[in-house]
């Protein structure tokens, strides 16, 4: 072994080189993914002097391999000897940051950002910042896009002369003639603004922001909206009106729907960033316009924000603003032509009731809820039903129950099983809010009907629903209302329904307790062990295994054990298997 030790130190790099040249991408990928193994085996010095130069020189490969490499290098600091030497990772990452494929480039930038933190301030100026400059003035757009993501990580830690240079580079990239670069710069504008001194935010960033926000390409303009949030947060209130608002107003009325969509999508953030006064004077009318936009995409995005926007309005005249400005638009949206708009609204509209209080809710919102409960699109109805809890707190659900019922019944019988599934999932919630009487009277039949649905997923969900109902209403209720019906299905001619009985028993036994399980359920299960369908029989075995722990030992020994023993001698292989399994699990052997 002593002789092999000498070779050991040599061959990792040989293996790597060999594998990296393999024709099979998968093998190349494997060896790159084990790069840290190789580095560890080589030790820090040889990693620096041999491995990294090799990697830097041979970078031309499938993007998948490059991606793995870019990721690995971000975690390499210790493998090259710690922060002192971290700069030797820069050359390979620099070339990876110029690759065409976006994922690779982004990963390289991510790794560069990570290791930038490990540079000492001196190294940052000597090694890192020159790299950023080289990328920023690269020929092909890819290196310039990558540079955009690196400015903000080195800016706070360099001297003021270098800072000035960085600002200059960023400015240049913001007016690059390639739209891809301008997009990259625009998307990093907010992040860069955060690390800049306030004076420079006012002098530099604002002019860049204004320019990007009126770019000829809408894909650039919309990114400026995102930056707007960060910039507005940084500036003192008194400067917002002059420095940010003209641009924001313009964006809210942009001729491209994508930009308006972005404004709508970021509306809550914008609202928080500009504060209550501007919200009152500017954002309220802007929001109204977005709610009435000619494109459904924009209306839907705005509709999604209705609740948050209203919540964040200044409290002193919140109610008045909502009642006079927002509510009229909301009323129109209830009968919008586009179902996505209506559905977006339905998912938040109930939240308004807590803000507006009982009287307003009854007078103004209730008619809207009722209208949406009758909407032709099931998604809208479901969204209303799923948010009933908000209204319940304010006005009590009774107000709605008359309209609720037809809506629920219709959804419960919808032709699409996913709609039925969705409504089943809200049943326990509804039952809790409507109370046991209303439930018994109106909804119980629905819940039982789902048990014999022709789609298995519905029957399964219905079983689970019963369990939740029993947890809510108690064992006694179960014994009176559900259990007899469930057990009655054991004699159904359809074996699928007979199996549903077993599934229900599985789900209910625990919630119902030992008494009901032993006295009412167990006899039925045992009787079914004589079923002619094997599927039912092995489900009997499974059920016995499941309810066994609920039963007392007497019942187990005297009733369950003989039945399982009989089943374990069944002619069907599966029945035997499950019966034997149950015997073992219940320790009846």
């Amino acid at each position, binding site marked *: 072994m002593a002789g092999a030790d000498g070779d050991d130190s040599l*061959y990792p790099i040989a293996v790597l080189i060999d594998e990296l040249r393999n*024709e099979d991408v998968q093998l190349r990928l494997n060896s790159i993914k084990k790069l840290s*193994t190789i580095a*560890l085996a080589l030790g820090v010095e040889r990693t620096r002097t041999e491995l990294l130069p090799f990697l830097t020189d041979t970078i031309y490969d499938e993007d998948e391999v490059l991606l793995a490499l870019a990721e690995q290098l971000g975690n390499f600091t210790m493998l090259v000897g710690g922060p002192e030497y971290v700069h030797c990772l820069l050359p390979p990452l620099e070339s990876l940051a110029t690759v065409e494929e976006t994922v690779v480039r982004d990963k390289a930038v991510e790794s560069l950002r990570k290791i930038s933190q490990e540079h000492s301030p001196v190294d940052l100026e000597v090694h890192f910042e020159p790299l950023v400059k080289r990328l920023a003035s690269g020929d092909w757009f890819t290196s310039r896009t990558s540079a955009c993501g690196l400015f903000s990580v080195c800016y706070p830690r360099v001297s003021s002369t270098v800072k000035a240079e960085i600002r200059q580079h960023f400015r240049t990239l913001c007016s690059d003639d390639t739209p891809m670069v301008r997009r990259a710069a625009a998307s990093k504008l907010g992040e860069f603004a955060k690390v800049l001194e306030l004076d420079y935010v006012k002098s530099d960033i604002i002019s860049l922001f204004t320019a990007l926000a009126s770019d000829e390409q809408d894909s650039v303009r919309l990114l400026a909206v995102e930056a707007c949030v960060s910039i507005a947060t940084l500036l003192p209130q008194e400067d917002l009106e002059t420095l940010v608002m003209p641009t924001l107003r313009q964006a809210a009325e942009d001729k491209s729907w994508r930009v308006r969509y972005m404004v709508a999508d970021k509306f809550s953030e914008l609202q928080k960033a500009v504060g209550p006064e501007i919200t009152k004077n500017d954002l309220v009318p802007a929001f109204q316009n977005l709610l009435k936009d000619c*494109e459904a995409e924009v209306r839907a995005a705005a509709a999604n924000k209705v609740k948050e926007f209203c919540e964040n309005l200044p409290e002193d005249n919140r109610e008045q603003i909502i009642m006079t400005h927002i509510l009229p638009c909301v009323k129109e949206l209830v009968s919008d032509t586009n179902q996505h708009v209506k559905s977006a609204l339905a998912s938040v509209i109930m939240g308004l009731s807590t803000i507006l209080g009982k009287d307003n809710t009854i007078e103004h919102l209730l008619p809207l809820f009722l209208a949406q409960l009758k909407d032709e699109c099931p998604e809208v109805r479901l969204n209303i039903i799923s948010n009933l809890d908000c209204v319940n707190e304010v006005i009590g659900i009774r107000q709605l129950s008359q309209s609720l019922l037809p809506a629920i019944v219709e959804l419960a019988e919808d032709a*699409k099983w996913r709609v039925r599934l969705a409504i089943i999932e809200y049943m326990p919630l509804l039952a809790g809010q409507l109370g046991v009487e209303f439930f018994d009277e109106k909804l119980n039949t629905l819940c039982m009907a789902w048990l014999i649905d022709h789609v298995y997923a519905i029957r399964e969900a219905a079983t689970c629903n019963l369990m939740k109902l029993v947890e809510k209403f108690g064992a006694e209720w179960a014994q009176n209302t559900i259990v007899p019906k469930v057990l009655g299905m054991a004699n159904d001619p359809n074996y699928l329904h007979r199996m549903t009985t077993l599934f229900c028993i599985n789900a209910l036994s625990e919630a119902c307790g030992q008494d009901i399980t032993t006295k009412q359920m167990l006899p039925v299960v045992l009787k079914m062990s004589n079923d002619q369908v094997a599927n039912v029989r092995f489900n009997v075995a499974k059920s016995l295994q499941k309810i066994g722990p609920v039963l007392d030992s007497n019942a187990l020994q005297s009733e369950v054990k003989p039945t399982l023993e009989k089943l374990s001698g069944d002619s069907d292989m599966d029945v035997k298997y499950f019966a034997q399994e149950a015997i073992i699990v219940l320790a009846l052997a």
Partner: protein
Amino acid sequence: MSAISASEKVDGFTRKSMRKAQKQRKSQGSSQYRTQSAPVELSPLPQLKDAPSTEQQELFTQKLQQCCMLFDFLDSVTDLKSKEIKRATLNELVDFVSTNRGVLVESAYPEITNMISTNIFRALPPSDNPDFDPEEDEPTLEASWPHMQLVYEFLLRFLENPDFQPSIAKRHIDQKFVLQLLELFDSEDPRERDFLKTILHRIYGKFLGLRAFIRKQINNIFLRFIYETEHFNGVAELLEILGSIINGFALPLKAEHKQFLMKVLIPLHTAKGLALFHAQLAYCVVQFLEKDPTLTEPVIRGLLKFWPKTCSQKEVMFLGEIEEILDVIEPTQFKKIQEPLFKQISKCVANPHFQVAERALYFWNNEYILSLIEENIDKVLPIMFGSLYRISKEHWNPTIVALVYNVLKTLMEMNCTLFDELTSSYKADRQREKKKEQERDELWKKLEELRLSNATLVQNNSHGLPSVQNNNNNNNNNSNNDSVNEDKSADGAAETVDGKDTMEASESTPCAK
């Protein structure tokens, strides 16, 4: 909601069926955002042909201005009269510029471009169908097409008018105009894209000053399409224009054009919707190679780099393009690329998808390719033999097996001795490959051990940490003075490599306590 098909009833609402149900209307308005207040009713002007020639220009201008009024076509009942007047006027204008000479006086240019810009330049509306599949779904048509078509027609006639003067027009048909025109290529309406194609081609032909700009902007559109959005409806149309532009490139090719080929056209092959524009793309590539054969090697290497890994349809397209390239390849270029190329072809021949295998095997029906193979049989045959031999015994599809037999026969006739040698050494070769595989596994295993011992080394060296003492490993006699935190990072790094081994390494810590 009335017409729910049986399959939908079973399937529930998948997104597609939701969309289908919702997608009743097939046309959409342009996203004209509050551009103007409600349209004013138009009143008909006298016919141009009836006007005295002194007043004709004045009337022409008035009509152009009248056509700047925009109407809502989604609402099919409003402004019927005005819509009809505008349609008739546009028809008359088209007629006027295509049949009359001397009507394009300098003062008319700004009015004309203004009318065109007002009508066609608009933010394209959001797609009705976010996962629009151009191969499957019906495109959404532009609602205002009855007017828009005539405006495009007018623009085309304007550009083609013998009196048309680029030197005057360039003040109006400038970079900004072209940029907006290019953005319209994203329109879902194929009729619109078709007009745009012809129009852009005319502009490229007539405005020499705009050519570089147009190429650069197309470049940007493609790059955005490839690397950012993966969505642009007009790729095929733009490539068609480029096809004829490339045809006209002067030799030797400028670096800019070569860069376009390698950095834009080749990566375009990675697009998901390649099928929609592959014919045009392959045409462009072949045009380049006919201009400059030395580009063959980088192009083929580029295609091999982006060779589809999971999409058989695309693989068939790639094979088609390779054949087109081989049709025009020079024998010297063929020699440079034969090795990597035939390695790929040999994989395709062995592809379990019979269409891929079939497409690759069809190469042997091409006389020119056959002659190239024959010339280089000593290089090609060893690469191809393994796959062909195996496939002839294993492929599930009888057609493929039959084709492979033919190919094997052809190859055998080309060099009988080599063929016999390969046949006899086939088994030995397979075994050698297997052995190599084993050796690789063992190398990695050894390396793994080495890493483990090094990892523990690093661990043991960190004396600063009280709990880290490892007795399980035997090489703890090495002492480097590495920093304390190295221990942590070595662990962290190892973790990314192989979870299982790290478990072992870190387990040693509690053991030692």
